[in-house]
């Protein structure tokens, strides 16, 4: 077989090396604000990889992922506040609620193709944000605060940044492994088939609804875990910080910038995007005066128009040397090429 990628042992080694590097990084980067910056990148990367499962692999663009993020954050926080349930369990429960929500939302919305599906996801996220903002039970616009009086691994609240770094790194690894496992199984093949030619996929016995729902559910579950992590790290959530449209946009941007449908593209996408965001804040004040938005948007338009394989595509063949990049056949990113 003439597969044009790197042999598996080399890639496995590369992946482990990268992971080891990531694990050792905070020993070098000890400044809390810099550690926080790294945490933000890992958080963005995790969300981007999770989004990519439905938006990249299966080609169903969601611009309402904040709803899953918010469900995760609110579920684990409410369970902690009302029942005193550990966020470890709460996060899983949030994932479960998120999956149920994904199924309920996907069933009508997946009747819509492409652009229309994307629009519908924005609408659903908006509805949820309005409902939560007006919910007395969830403290509405006031938001929820986590108790400050305890810390440690049981309640997943820490006084230093370092434990958060390792928790989010672990979550990112879990998310990447999930995406990788999907990519290699029949599900990954079915996702790509649905993205390329849905009618032909049906003729081969692929149920579009079932597999789109699988894609959305897995993505929703992982996104909810990210939301729970956010709540634990910030110790405060409100509709604006975990359910806003801007969050949905950011999640999608990270994956799009990094390269839609590539395993590790979103990690790079997150690094680029978070860096731009932080720099524009330093240069133009707290809101960045929209400069970060302008830069991402310009990049996205350029990527869409000229190099649909994302930032990774712009960096040429670097992608091939990334450990864990697609192992069989052409890179997923090739799918995004503009056909003549």
């Amino acid at each position, binding site marked *: 077989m003439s597969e044009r990628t790197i042999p598996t042992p080399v890639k496995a080694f590369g992946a482990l090396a990268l992971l080891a590097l990531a694990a050792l990084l905070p020993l070098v980067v000890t400044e809390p604000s810099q550690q926080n910056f790294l945490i933000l990148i890992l958080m963005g990367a995790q969300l981007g990889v999770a989004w990519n499962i439905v938006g990249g692999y299966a*080609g169903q*663009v969601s*611009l309402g992922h904040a709803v899953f993020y918010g469900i995760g954050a609110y579920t684990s926080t409410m369970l902690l506040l009302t029942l005193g349930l550990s966020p470890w369990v709460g996060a899983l429960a949030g994932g479960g609620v998120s999956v149920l929500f994904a199924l309920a939302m996907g069933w*009508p*919305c997946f*009747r*819509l*193709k*492409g*652009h*229309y599906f*994307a*629009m*519908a996801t*924005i*609408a*659903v996220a*908006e*509805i949820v944000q*309005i*409902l939560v*903002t*007006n919910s007395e039970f969830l403290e509405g616009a006031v938001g929820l605060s986590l108790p400050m009086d305890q810390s440690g691994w049981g309640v997943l609240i820490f006084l230093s940044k370092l434990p958060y770094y390792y928790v989010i790194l672990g979550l990112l690894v879990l998310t990447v492994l999930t995406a990788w496992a999907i990519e290699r199984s029949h599900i990954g093949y079915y996702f790509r088939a649905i993205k390329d030619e849905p009618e032909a996929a049906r003729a081969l016995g692929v149920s579009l609804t079932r597999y789109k729902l699988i894609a959305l559910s897995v993505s929703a579950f992982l996104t909810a875990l990210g939301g729970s992590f956010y709540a634990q790290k910030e110790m405060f959530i409100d509709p604006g910080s975990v359910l806003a*449209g801007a969050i949905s*946009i950011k999640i*999608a*941007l990270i994956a*799009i910038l990094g390269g*839609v449908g590539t395993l590790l593209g979103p990690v790079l996408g997150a690094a680029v995007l978070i860096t731009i965001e932080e720099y524009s804040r330093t240069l133009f004040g707290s*809101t960045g*005066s*929209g*400069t*970060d*938005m*302008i830069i*991402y*948007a*310009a*990049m*996205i*338009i350029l*990527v*869409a*128009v*000229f190099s*649909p394989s994302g930032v990774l595509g712009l960096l040429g063949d670097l992608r091939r040397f990334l450990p864990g990049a697609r192992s069989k056949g052409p890179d997923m990113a090739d*799918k*995004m*090429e*503009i*056909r*003549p």
Partner: protein
Amino acid sequence: MTADILFQVLVSGLLIGLIYALVAVGLTLIFGVMDIVNFAHGEFLMLGMYASFWAFALFAVDPIVALPFTALLLFAVGVIVYQTVIRRILKAPMLSQIFATFGLMILLRGLAQFFWKPDHRLIPHSLVSGNLTLGSVQFGLPQFVAALGAVGVTGGLWYFLHRTRLGTALEATAIDREAATLMGIDGQKMFALAWGIGAACAGIAGGLIATFFPIFPEVGANFILIAFVVVVLGGFGSVTGAFLAGIIVGLIEVLGGFLVGPEYKTAIVLSLLLVVLLVRPRGLMGKA
């Protein structure tokens, strides 16, 4: 509910519904002609509002007087967007198409925030201000004028699409692009025209809304979602459908706000989207 209140609700719903129709008409036209959803449509509206604001702030020109200028400006914006971005992604995979107009949305919001600050701005003392009283029903003059304008523009667009040569060609392209090309209609020109007209409609809507609604960089987000509901309810690509659906959505919004609570009115309208998708995905007047 007394008859007076009901009547008041109906009038308010009708007025806002006509404006929604105007915003949605441009969106549905672009959908219909080229099967692309313009995520930046709300930002065209936002640009229309800022154009009115600056015409007022710098030259003391009232938004209503400035309408032709706003329309022309936005027509130009639409054509430029088409020529620089959209034209290059016509044959691109759907994902690239989504990302292109989505990117445009973020870009325009970012630019507005950068140049005009995130502040809410208002146009004070427009030509049209104050309230009108009709029997027991009271409504704002700006809303009334905006609704009249919406009817005029939508009517004009309908006339253009059905009674003029150029408009018929555009409509033919919307119905069947390939057949239209075979009949010698220049697809590229039609696409550019659709973007120009679509943006101009959004711009006029912006100019009309600017007389009574705050102006800020994200203002388009409110309207694009409702416009999307209108387009789905009316049937993708149907101008007449969008007009009727706009009124229905306006009525539901005001009635829902009245019965359930104003904070839920947008959620009610957006839920309508899911109901339509479940019950009648082709909308009121959409092609099967």
